[in-house]
């Protein structure tokens, strides 16, 4: 905060009156304790302090990014931007900057967690696994974000997060679990360990089953991966502009049991409450009862589609990537895990998906695999563990009207193909999911 105030005070003296200018700073302490073969093998901490300077002058724009050590002085950085912006071409998509009334101030001094506290959580996870081989990590972070612009906006925010993610392995199986929250104290690593251990224990000596279409019960991590693909590629307004989004607004595209909300302001939501432009993110109903209602916008996409900005610009990416929701909640249903399994005649329980890739953005056909705990369900009971299966399935179709049988009654932050802390979801029971390959290819 002290550096930011000093930098800003000095910088303001050297910014010409005729230009648009935006200055941002992120400072973080990110720590991660990593374990493998049931002991801690890597333990890291990173201090970050980066300045982003955007200058828009005579219809041209440039962004320079430097960590604070590589900046000689605020003046030198501004002079460099003013010189280099002349080389930039016309920026026809420039959409301005938020006004001063969008300022949001929530900076807090926060002491980072120490490595002993993370090691304690790791120990709790590992110890429930008896002789099984444990691997994973426990991470903590403290992030501060500051934004100022020549419209008079001055914003700040502070956030913390903590995660534990781990697996137990045997010769023939593995099981995983995950917990996330705003503070390390809230992370129940022992329960996560118990879940992972049980999955590894129960999935030993898996049997191969034939590929084909199966009913599936999906754990939170598997659900989270389906939704993160829709969030990043589907509800991103940039995809809509480019014609590659599969989302059909205001139509019954998804099952009516599905309601998705992006809410950065909910108690214990993770991440900043302001977007990269410094304005508060809007809370959005993305899907209501299966009907898509809103896209994630940035300044530029909102201008291009002539819609209201939702303020979902990602920090550090510029706004060419479009808007991304990072606080997505899937409203839970009323089923327990046992209810879901007992309702399956013949299907598969999938704990987690792995290495999912889009084959075509419009159809959202994705291929990937299962891992860390999969079981065949027959006549309402888990009958045996199953090995690797490859799916090739449209994620849109997997959530379409009629394909969602039920939602779990409990939700939690779940890991996903694109990272953790983005989605808070329950389990899902789907009528049909297409597996196209097994262990033998």
């Amino acid at each position, binding site marked *: 905060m002290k550096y930011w105030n000093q930098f800003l005070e000095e910088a303001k003296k050297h910014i010409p009156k005729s230009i648009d200018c935006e200055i941002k700073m992120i400072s973080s302490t990110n720590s991660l*304790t*990593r*374990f*493998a*073969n049931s*002991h*801690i*093998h*890597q*333990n*890291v*901490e*990173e*201090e*970050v302090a*980066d300045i982003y300077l955007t200058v828009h002058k005579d219809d041209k724009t440039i*962004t*320079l*990014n*430097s*960590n*604070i*050590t*590589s900046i000689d002085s605020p003046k030198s950085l501004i002079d460099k931007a003013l010189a280099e912006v002349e*080389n*930039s*071409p016309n*920026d026809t*998509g420039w959409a301005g900057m938020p006004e001063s009334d969008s300022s949001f101030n929530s900076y807090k001094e926060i002491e980072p967690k120490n490595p002993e506290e993370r*090691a*304690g959580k*790791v*120990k709790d996870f590992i110890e429930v696994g008896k002789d099984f*081989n444990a*691997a*994973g*990590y426990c991470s903590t972070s403290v992030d501060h974000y500051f934004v100022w612009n020549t419209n008079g906006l001055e914003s700040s925010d502070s956030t913390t997060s903590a995660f534990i*993610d*781990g697996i137990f*392995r045997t010769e023939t199986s593995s099981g995983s679990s995950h917990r996330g929250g705003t503070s390390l104290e809230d992370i129940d690593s022992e329960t996560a360990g118990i879940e992972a251990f049980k999955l590894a224990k129960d999935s030993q000596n898996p049997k191969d089953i034939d590929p084909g279409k199966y009913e599936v019960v999906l754990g939170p991590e598997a659900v989270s991966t389906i939704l993160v693909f829709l969030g990043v590629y589907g509800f991103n307004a940039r995809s809509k502009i*480019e*014609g590659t989004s599969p989302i059909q607004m205001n139509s019954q595209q998804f099952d009516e049991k599905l309601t998705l909300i992006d809410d950065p302001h909910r108690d214990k939501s993770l991440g900043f409450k302001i977007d990269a432009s410094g304005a508060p993110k809007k809370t959005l109903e993305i899907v209501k009862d299966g009907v898509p209602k809103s896209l994630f916008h940035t300044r530029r996409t909102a201008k291009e589609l002539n819609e209201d900005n939702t303020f979902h610009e990602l920090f550090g990416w*510029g706004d*060419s990537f479009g808007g991304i929701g990072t606080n997505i909640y899937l409203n839970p249903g009323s089923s327990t895990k046992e209810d879901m399994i007992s309702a399956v005649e013949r299907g598969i329980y999938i704990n987690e998906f792995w*290495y*999912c*890739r889009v*084959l075509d*953005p*419009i*159809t959202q056909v994705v*291929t990937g*695999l299962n*891992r860390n705990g999969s079981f065949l369900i027959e006549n309402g009971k888990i009958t045996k563990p199953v090995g690797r299966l*490859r799916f*090739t*399935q449209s994620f849109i179709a997997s959530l379409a009207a009629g394909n969602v049988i039920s939602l779990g009654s409990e939700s939690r932050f779940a890991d996903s193909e694109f990272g953790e802390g983005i989605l808070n979801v329950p389990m899902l029971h789907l009528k049909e999911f297409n597996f*196209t390959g097994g*262990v*033998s290819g």
Partner: protein
Amino acid sequence: MFDLLQKAVDSAISSGAAYSDARILNSKSRSISARNGDVEDFNQSESIGIGIRALVGSSWGFYSTYDLSDKSLVNAGLKAHNIAKASAKVPGKEFPLADVPIVEDEYTTPHEKNPFKVSSTDQINLLVKSTEEMKKNGSSHASGRLDFWDTEKWFFSSQGHKIYQNIVESGGGISSLSIGDGETQIRSYPQSFGEYRTGGWEVIESFKFENEVERLAEESKRLLTAPQCPEGTRDLILEGSQLALQIHESVGHAIELDRILGWEAAYAGASHLDLNKLNKHKYGSKLMNIIADATLPGALATFKYDDEGTPAQRVNIVEEGIWKGVLTGRDSAAIAGVSPGGMVRADGYGRIPMVRMTNVGLLPGNSSLDEIIEATDDGVYMETNRSWSIDDIRLNFQFGCEAGWLVKNGKITDMVKNPTYTGITPNFWASMDMLAGEDEWVFWGTPNCGKGQPGQVGHTGHPASPARFKNVRIGVKG
């Protein structure tokens, strides 16, 4: 810079670390992207900082900071030690580091035109013109991207290493996306996500985007009306850049010793390879000769020393189809009882060094793409990656390519869309029966390899030439 590094390392050692090393990086990057004749992003970034490792017992402690003041450097050494020491709450077995030569040396990537001294206007104009031309030729979305990195690294260890390296990397590419009725088709050049190498602006000049723009636009449009790739089992001919990614995913990651030892099991995964089968396991056909070589001039993962100070070298990974080698660091090599191969690198100063692919490539054969096609009665030729997925022990894979062509009785016939193929790693490599020669051997580069926690992006190289694989399952659909 070495004085600054020594302050931090001395602090870690005097705190009780058995070994410590540190790197200061001064990094510059420039990225430019354009779409449909307009510049989309023009970003330049600079950073300076230090990352220090300390080995205490069975664990590495790592701390990084942007603050290079004397007080901060001493604190950095102490912190790295204390972070490692905290791991003693869940200890493992102590390990030594494999011996490597202790050197004082310096190295700069050979290059003709430093990309940061070339006018950014010229760089922007290249993309603007290329994307404008593709758009004029009917592309729905024409995009292009250029990236440049100029990284100075100073490395110092408690054993006496003092190494300065200046690595210059350049790359980029162009793509034409066509949108049809409920589908998209794309063609990219030189490969999907661009082609990257060590070197300067001359790397980009060698691509000659202007010769490809019309073809890319035309092919992406034509794919919209092309028939689907047929389903079934056929001979598969892969163009070099797709084969490079096949090598990356099904060989490169599988031979990382940290994976084999289980250090990456929770995230990136482990490996189907078992060290007890080294020198015995059949990885592929006799045509399969894989090397890991960080000395290939101009390849993306070429340097003189890795981020542990181990000299760059060539290591034989697969010889005539038999698995012979692994990718190592000083710690993993000592634990496994193999020689350290200089394959440890970190993503910037802020991340801990880890085992990374160097230039892991398939040595050329003695055929040619034309001869391979002539020798194929019923097959599909696939070009340019579009999707990739492989399981966490690197066995079960499925790749999609941008475009395919049927091969009938020795001739290329119809273009087909959405070509995919799937297989199991050793079976697939065992089916390779024809391999193009040195004339078609290209040092493909991958600038976006993700690994580790916290995540790191690595730059890897994959020399490859076109090859044929017999009886592969193709045309998998959702």
